[in-house]
């Protein structure tokens, strides 16, 4: 029994995605939502295994739903399904805890393949996202002016191997190619990518929490 959340505002696309999901996960229970508000209601009511979340929605951004899922149902795999391919849109969603992203206009077969890969633990990683992740962690590793408060944040950093993978992705190598270059199995590379996503999320969440705490302190 698989519970899947499908958040998409365009009815045709929602229907199309729904059929596609059923093809990948036969017999899955699909809870459909067209608005962020409705999706958040579903998140508080149903426990999902997978969530396909659109970003640009009439009443807000799907990033909020991704964050809510990460907060309340950490086991749920959130996948962003979007028309935006640029890291400006994707990166915040990945920081919020999305495990991957699918570009909507791709051919049905391609999307099915990607969805299968994601559900098997092989999230996609584009060069621009890889560069963005590297830049994010590079900035974090710089000495912080407020050392006392940054000490409160759990220090998350990438391992050399993870950085190596990111570097190669950024240069345009595909994950299988990197696996060959590093003489690592496809699954090991996928694990690195998953780990990178996880660290990005953990670090971002800690940062956000610290930010909230800081605001609270100053607000008092």
């Amino acid at each position: 029994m698989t519970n899947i959340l499908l958040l998409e505002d365009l009815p045709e696309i929602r229907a199309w995605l729904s059929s596609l999901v059923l093809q990948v996960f036969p017999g899955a229970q699909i809870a459909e939502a067209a608005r962020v508000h409705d999706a958040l209601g579903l998140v508080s009511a149903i426990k999902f295994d997978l969530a396909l979340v659109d970003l640009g929605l009439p009443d807000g951004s799907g990033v909020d739903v991704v964050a809510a899922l990460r907060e309340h149902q950490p086991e749920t795999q959130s996948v962003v399904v979007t028309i935006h391919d640029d890291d400006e849109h994707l990166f915040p969603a990945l920081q919020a805890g999305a495990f991957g992203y699918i570009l909507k206009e791709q051919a049905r077969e391609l999307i099915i393949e990607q969805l299968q890969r994601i559900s098997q633990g092989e999230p996609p990683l584009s060069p621009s996202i890889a560069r963005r992740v590297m830049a994010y962690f590079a900035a974090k590793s710089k000495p912080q002016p407020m050392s006392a408060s940054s000490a409160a944040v759990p220090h998350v950093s990438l391992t050399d191997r993870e950085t190596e993978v990111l570097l190669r992705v950024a240069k345009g190598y595909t994950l299988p190619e990197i696996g060959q270059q590093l003489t690592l199995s496809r699954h090991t590379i996928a694990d690195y990518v998953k780990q990178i996503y996880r660290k990005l999320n953990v670090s971002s969440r800690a940062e956000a929490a610290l930010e909230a705490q800081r605001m609270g302190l100053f607000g008092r």
Partner: protein
Amino acid sequence: MSRSGWHRRLHGMLCLGLLWLAAASAVAQDQTVTIRAAQAAVSDGPSFPTEPPAPLVELPDDWSVSRPGSSGPVWYRLTFVAPGLRETGELLALYIEHVCTNLQVYLNGQLIHSGGQMHEPITQNCNHPQLVGLPAGLIGPGPNSLDLKVVGHALQRVASTHRAGGLSALAIGPHSALAGKHARQVALNVAVPQAVSATLLLMGSFMFVLGWMNRRESHLAYFGALSVGWALIESRLWLRDLPFDNAVAELLLCSMLPLLTWASVQFLLRYAQYRHRWIDIALPLQAVVMPVTLLLAGPERLYPMASFWYVLLPLQTLAAAGFYLRTQYHVQRGAFWPMALFLCIATVALAVEYVAQSFGIRGSLMQMAQVATPVMMVLVGLRLLHQQGRAMQDAVEGKAHLEMRIREATAEIERNFTQLAELRVEKVTERERKRIAADLHDDLGAKLLTIVHTSDSERISTLAREALEEMRLSVRGLTGKPVRLIDALGDWRAEVVSRLGQAGIEADWSAPAEELPQTLSARAFVQTTRILREAVSNVIKHSGATHCSLSCDLADGDMQIIVRDNGNGIPMELDGRLDRGHGMASMKHRAKQLQGQCLVESGPGYGTVIRLTLPLTRATEAA
């Protein structure tokens, strides 16, 4: 006047046993005899009054002491013998160091000298030593009588003891000896004050005009007025014939003093940057009140009234000087000491002059004091002019500096403004681009997407997908930032290799892997991406190739991308040109837009080579 009378008088004098033998002196050939006593009688007659017998008086004879309240005229008679004069041929002379106000000299009854007008307005000779040559023809071998008719004014009628009636000691001696003494004294008493007057008048007028034209430097105007006033007052020492009688002349002279006080006090206060309304009013008022009090007192009480003012007015100046020095001491230590020195010397000189005037003292100290004050004024004036010159120079330099600063500031403001305007335009443009991009995604994107996934026709679906990708690239060209070339190569490689891989075509990518400094504008990146995408699409769809190699090289500022496949090649059309249906036209068009070119070589069975050359300098320009 008879010779026997003379004898009798001389006899009488000797019989009285008086010790003043000098009155009848024997004048030797080359020696000067100072005469310190003479017979004196008040008379306005044409000759020395014989009756009643005139008493002997000591010389110098100060009328205010010997005959208080008297305004003369007074006749003086003295007798001298000059034995052997005719033999030597020496010319004798009478030297009168000081006579106030004027005199006539008679030798043995003959008028031999007149100092000028003997009636009002009397010629002022108080400061002019008189040298009277004694004609040898009139000098007898026996005792000679020398009569002096002196006209003058009682002390009460003048404002200074120096202008009160009186006669100094006399000297008789060789003309040659006395002429030198006379010349020296005239130089000191007359020439020096004349020079001082001229200097002060010139400098004062100049400074007055300077201060008047520049109201911010009002102290200069007051100092100029002070100098001019002092020059006028100084003229009393050398001007002899005024068209007024004594009363008017004294009144005018006295009236100058409150004006001088006004000028000096205001000069000192303004110079100390101080201004007070009451002082501005009080000083001119005083200048009016003082002459009025003198008029009210009347000519007979001029001296006591003037004496009162003589104390009051210098005290005001002194107070102003004290105020000035106190202020300067705290504000400008550097400028303090010179001015303090000048003021102290001037004060001492004025004090000496005051004492000398009050007690009728004459002498070199008095003369030095009389000169010291104007000399100090000249020094102060020079100092003020120097300061003014320096200030003007500073002002000119400051102005030049300021103008330069203004030019710089203006240029900077213009620069900043231009930058701000550019930033603003950039910001507005950026916002607008983002809005358009969002609209495109939300509206056009959603519709195209719906077509992609709902169309039954594969062709329409593909077209819509391509349109969507085009739109996305367009938006990126609109909103995107410049892309580093190394990043662009990474993106292209990822796309090309994964697409070819999915199509089952073996891909081979070669590109510089080192760090590249170049960046591509968003537009260049997008256009190049489109060309590459089209080329790869052609390989996948039409070539039937099993292998595709892509290479990117940088040389001579150009970027050359070569896509080479081992497929069927592009079929020729009837006219021998390559098929345009395979997106070749749009690829060439896009390359042209980037000032580059796209060459296609193809032959049936030989595969296809697409050479894309883009000038990096052009491609890196902002979109």
